[in-house]
């Protein structure tokens, strides 16, 4: 257990010393994952809402597919995006392989199913409760869906945070499409992987602790917001 003790010491040293390398890595991690979650929400939320309220042939199949895609292995997504963005691939001329943009794209692809599938469930449950009243008042399906998105916003916030957690925690996708380039595409998870492979376990664990604390803080914030909302809006 001395490794664990050293890890805490290493973590504390990193944070207390406000290590500038660490700051850069944390900033980049946040930028990449927050951007990805933002894009994924813009795509996934309306998608989930539309599927929740519309009826069309193949709907059940689509729902099953979406749920299944939640479990996409990050490393597979990374490989697919790499093949797309490589110079030898169809989108190579964009030249964005090994940049944070590629990492954002990969993580967005990873999280869209999560946001779409879970918001679909949330909004469908709400639609079951609200649909007759909303239709009676004259709302069409999609306008009703938009209203429900706002009405279920606090449950949706939890879903967005789940998406962020998944993005911030994954290493497979960003490693392959980002290349773990020092100072350019190195994020918390890829740094942990690197330090582990170098055998510098205390440092890797230290970084891991910093990452976990970050995610815990964000989820605590979400819990507080939900609590306040519950009390205020019922």
């Amino acid at each position, binding site marked *: 257990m001395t490794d664990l003790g050293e890890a805490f010491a290493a973590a504390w040293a990193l944070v207390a010393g406000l290590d500038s390398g660490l700051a850069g890595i944390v900033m980049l991690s946040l930028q990449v994952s*927050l951007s990805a979650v*933002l894009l994924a929400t813009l795509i996934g939320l309306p998608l989930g809402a539309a599927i929740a309220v519309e009826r069309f042939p193949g709907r059940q199949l689509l729902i099953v597919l979406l749920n299944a895609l939640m479990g996409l292995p990050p490393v597979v997504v990374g490989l697919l995006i790499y093949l797309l963005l*490589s110079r030898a691939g169809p989108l190579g*001329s964009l030249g964005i392989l090994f940049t944070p943009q590629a990492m954002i794209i990969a993580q967005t692809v990873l999280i869209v199913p999560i946001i779409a599938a879970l918001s679909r469930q949330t909004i469908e449950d709400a639609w079951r409760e609200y649909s007759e009243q909303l239709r009676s008042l004259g709302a069409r399906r999609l306008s009703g869906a938009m209203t429900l998105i706002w009405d279920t916003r606090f449950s949706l916030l939890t879903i967005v945070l789940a998406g962020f957690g998944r993005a911030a925690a994954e290493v497979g996708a960003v490693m392959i499409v980002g290349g773990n380039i*020092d100072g350019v595409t190195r994020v918390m998870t890829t740094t942990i992987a690197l330090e*582990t492979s170098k055998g510098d376990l205390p440092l890797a664990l230290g970084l891991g602790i910093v990452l976990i604390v970050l995610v815990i803080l964000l989820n605590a914030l979400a819990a507080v917001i939900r609590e306040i909302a519950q009390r205020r809006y019922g």
Partner: protein
Amino acid sequence: MASSRRNWLKGAMIALTMLVLQQGTALAQQKFITVASTTSTEQSGLFKHLLPLFEKKTGIQVRVVALGTGQALDMGRRGDADVVFVHDKVAEEKFIADGFGVQRFEVMYNDFVLVGPKADPAKIAGGKDIVDACKKIAAAGAPFASRGDKSGTHAAELRLWKTSGVDPASGKGSWYRETGSGMGPTLNTASAMNAYAFTDRGTWLSFRNRGDLIIVVEGDQKLFNQYGVMLVNPAKHPHVKKDLGQAFVDWVISPEGQQAIAAYKIGADQLFFPNAKR
């Protein structure tokens, strides 16, 4: 919705957008090249020492993607890198012959060492003959951890087995263990299993998780590991940054670059020995 809520939402979106764009624009303005190299080279710390010197001189940022040699050369073939900097002469010469690279320049060499448990089941510690050591390991059936990942290190290891007349495949599943991963993870595995392993000195010097492992064989000529640098062929990939890439190649084999390589030490040990031909 209430206007105050709308404003807060607008403000948050703007802040988030700026956060996202900020890092994008910062990157876009920088002159840079992409160099495909190996994990062992990067983990030795050489690039952290070398590249700032180059950037200071030329203003060109060097972005190193560190993979196994096989992957690095593959990157070059696909045109995802401007320069390839690896240590597998045979594979590099094929790369040039196939037209993917312009010209191969020798840059430096480091050496490999054989590490193993203090208990030394194959009784080879202190030896200077790597081929003999290989024979003894196979004969004793002592655990051996191999990278098994098509890297330069792996290729060098396989050549030694061949020279010693041992087919490591015969030990698959018993004493010969392929990890399919980089130098660091393979050493981690060797340390955990008390196995022998073949590693470059650089990675070994900065490796912190040694357990019971020590260097058992070193100094054999056959253990020298030659590095070569190649510009990816702009004829095959017109987008390659040939001027910036050539600047890097030129610098690395120039007296200045060679001196910088020699100056890199871990503790008191020099890791890489420059040997560019002039």
